[in-house]
């Protein structure tokens, strides 16, 4: 028992940065949303107007799910916080599970633990227990801030249980994909596809008439159907609990049966040589990242298509005057035209493109941590050229992703006769690039200055900026503070004009940060894992 509890403590400590970051994010969202709602819509009349417009809008449901009560602070929180936290919970569960079920094994540490006489099942369940303890930390954070925002305690506990319930399923799913794949990267990619599929099923269930059943096929839909603060349905918790338990048990069996360090489904270990894209470190980075890029491209294009199809969802009559004034605060000229709606949604592509950039910075850091960079720099390969060329590659792939979003949004919008021209939507795509590159350059600077923390710093900067953009206006903070987030400076093209000055400033900052990153990197020691 001593050994198992040592493993559990170790696993809990391993995940503490991730858990605390997510807890901070969830806490901020959980506090700012009810507080902001109370401030922005103080009277019942305001709330009724908000409910009439936003509450029935398919396009808004795409992001947050279907609201069940928008007249109370609790109902709004259950919808807005619940919908977002459910997605965070899914991502957190996947990351936590792959960490203990695969990364430890890839690094060879699992063999040490098993070799020390601890059974496989004991190690596995100790790690699961540590992950559940981490989940309890997230839940405690949400309950505490909800109580601080003057929401009833019992209902807040149910909100936390409901919105974090997808984490249970995705811990199980993460454990299962970790058994299938022969490495951390493939496991994470498979898991990401599952999270995306769960999200898309929820979107289809929410927005496509006649497809409500899709909500019952996804843990995110279950969380939504639990309806915290509206008409709570606690018995639905059985679904994620049972699914999570079954998946965790299945993965435990699979883990006990397979060879340590291998997956149940193995790629081929032998292949005839393929010599394309081996001419330079950048070419090899492109070659190794092709699968990941393809997945991002596919997911982005699909989402853009759906958004294009939904661009006609807002009509002038369902947006009241008060709300229009509020929306102006958001900087959105008009949501009632397809162009305005698309401009608003493209903010989410800025987020997606920026997260892709972070993933690329994390990949560059992995090259260093795993020792490949040491081999490269021992060859006649210059540091500045290596990092410079890598940043050019990231810039190109980021731009390609952004333009694909524009193209597919146009395909969707055109098929609905939205009347937004292709060049305007390509411009909307291109408009994601300056902010995305600013985040990439900030990540590169972190890579140069604090290499071990770089991926965490890069992701945290993007997510914190985005959450700030979502809630800062609700909180009514001064515009100078709202402007701290790069997202605040993105013109909502195609609904609003392209903000050339802001874009140029962001590109200038990005270039300066990238230059600084290269200069700092040229002077530092390489650092292993």
């Amino acid at each position: 028992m001593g050994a198992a509890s040592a493993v559990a403590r170790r696993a809990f400590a391993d995940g503490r940065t991730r858990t605390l970051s997510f807890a901070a994010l969830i806490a901020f969202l959980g506090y700012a949303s009810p507080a902001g709602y109370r401030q922005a819509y103080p009277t019942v009349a305001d709330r009724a107007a908000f409910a009439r417009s936003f509450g029935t809008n398919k396009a808004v449901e795409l992001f947050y799910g279907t609201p069940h009560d928008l007249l109370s602070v609790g109902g709004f929180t259950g919808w807005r916080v619940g919908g977002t936290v459910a997605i965070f919970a899914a991502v957190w569960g996947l990351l936590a599970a792959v960490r203990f079920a695969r990364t430890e094994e890839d690094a060879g540490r699992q063999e040490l633990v098993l070799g020390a006489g601890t059974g496989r099942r004991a190690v596995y369940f100790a790690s699961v227990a540590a992950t559940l303890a981490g989940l309890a930390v997230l839940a405690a954070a949400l309950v505490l801030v909800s109580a601080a925002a003057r929401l009833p305690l019992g209902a807040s506990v149910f909100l936390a249980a409901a919105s974090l319930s997808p984490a249970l399923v995705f811990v199980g799913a993460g454990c299962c994909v970790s058994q299938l794949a022969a490495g951390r990267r493939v496991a994470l990619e498979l898991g990401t596809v599952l999270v995306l599929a769960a999200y898309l099923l929820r979107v289809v269930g929410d927005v496509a008439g006649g497809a409500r059943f899709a909500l019952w096929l996804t843990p995110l839909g279950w969380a939504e159907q639990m309806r915290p603060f509206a008409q709570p349905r606690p018995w639905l918790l059985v679904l994620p609990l049972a699914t999570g338990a079954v998946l965790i048990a299945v993965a435990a069996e699979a883990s006990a049966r397979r060879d340590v360090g291998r997956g149940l489904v193995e790629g081929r270990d032998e292949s005839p040589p393929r010599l394309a894209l081996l001419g330079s470190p950048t070419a090899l980075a492109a070659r190794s990242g092709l699968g990941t890029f393809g997945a991002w491209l596919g997911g982005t294009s699909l989402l853009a298509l759906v958004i294009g199809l939904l661009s006609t969802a807002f009509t002038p009559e369902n947006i009241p005057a008060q709300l229009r004034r509020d929306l102006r605060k958001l900087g959105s000229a008009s949501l009632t035209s397809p162009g305005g709606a698309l401009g608003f949604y493209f903010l989410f592509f800025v987020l997606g493109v920026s997260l892709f950039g972070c993933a690329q910075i994390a990949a560059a850091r992995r090259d260093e941590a795993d020792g490949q960079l040491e081999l490269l720099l021992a060859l006649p390969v210059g540091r500045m050229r290596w990092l410079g060329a890598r940043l050019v590659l990231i810039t190109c792939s980021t731009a390609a992703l952004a333009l694909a979003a524009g193209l597919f949004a146009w395909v969707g919008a055109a098929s609905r006769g939205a009347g937004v021209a292709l060049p305007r939507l390509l411009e909307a795509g291109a408009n994601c690039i300056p902010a995305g590159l600013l985040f990439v350059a900030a990540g590169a600077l972190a890579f140069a200055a604090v290499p071990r923390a770089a991926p965490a710093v890069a992701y945290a900067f993007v997510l914190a900026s985005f959450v700030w953009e979502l809630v800062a206006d609700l909180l009514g903070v001064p515009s100078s503070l709202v402007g701290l987030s790069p997202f605040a400076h993105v013109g909502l093209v195609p609904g609003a004009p392209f903000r050339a000055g802001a874009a140029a400033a962001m590109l200038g900052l990005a270039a300066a940060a990238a230059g600084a990153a290269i200069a700092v990197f040229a002077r530092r020691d390489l650092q292993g894992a």
Partner: protein
Amino acid sequence: MDAIETRSLTKRYGRTLALDGLDLRVTRGEVYGYLGPNGAGKTTTIRLLLGLHRPTGGSAALFGVDAWREPVAAHRHVAYVAGEPTLWPGLTSAETFAYLARLHGSTDSAYRDELIQRFRVEPDKKVRALSKGNRQKVQLVAAFASRADLLILDEPTSGLDPLMEMAFRRTVAEAKERGQTIFLSSHELSEVEAVCDRVGILRRGRLVDEGTLAELRHLDTQTWEIDFAGEPPDLSRVRGVSDVERNGSTLHLEVTGDPSDLIAALAGADVVALHTRELSLEEIFLHHYEGSDAGGRS
């Protein structure tokens, strides 16, 4: 111009002094053994030689080119074998050879094919499916096939079986014949003894001894093993004698300088047999470390 020259090369990591004013010269065509226990600073030296870490003080040059300031020019004539053979897990061995050859700019493909046979490398196997020893072989084949003027090898035979170790020694001999310089960091004493012209011994970031094996033996120190018919006499106070060890009626000791006092002390004793030999590298090595804390950082 020397293949490697360091001047007062110093590296600190925070408060740890990993390398302390190293002055090292490796001439062209030489096989230099770089010895030291774990944490003595061997890998730190290599990282500074390759410009991967920045010196806190002093400088390192490869063929006269500064390793930190001009790494690209310095590495044109260098091949490196890392102690941890990570490589690129998604590439096959053949793809790894092609990639490294393109980055290096030169490779002798006929010799590479010969080495692939010699080290029994499976070219179509992906690196992720290889054991540590097999990945080490891939690195060795790529490095020797590059025909680089200087090979920097960091514990290259860890993980190799005895047959492959023999193949390694043969390959080193061929490189030496061709005039290539080899810097071999190791704690495999038998390997260093077998292939190296000169040896440097590192202790806590300092070079404590350096020279050919004969020089390291200090010529005047020998090991004596003496069998007695009865009780062995006490020889520990005899001039020049040290490290006396008794095993039944046999004494094991080291004699430095003129052994005539020892011979005189043995005159009255009933000696059955007497063997003398020069110190092994292992004994020299232990001399430098016994009783000392060799800790530090590699």
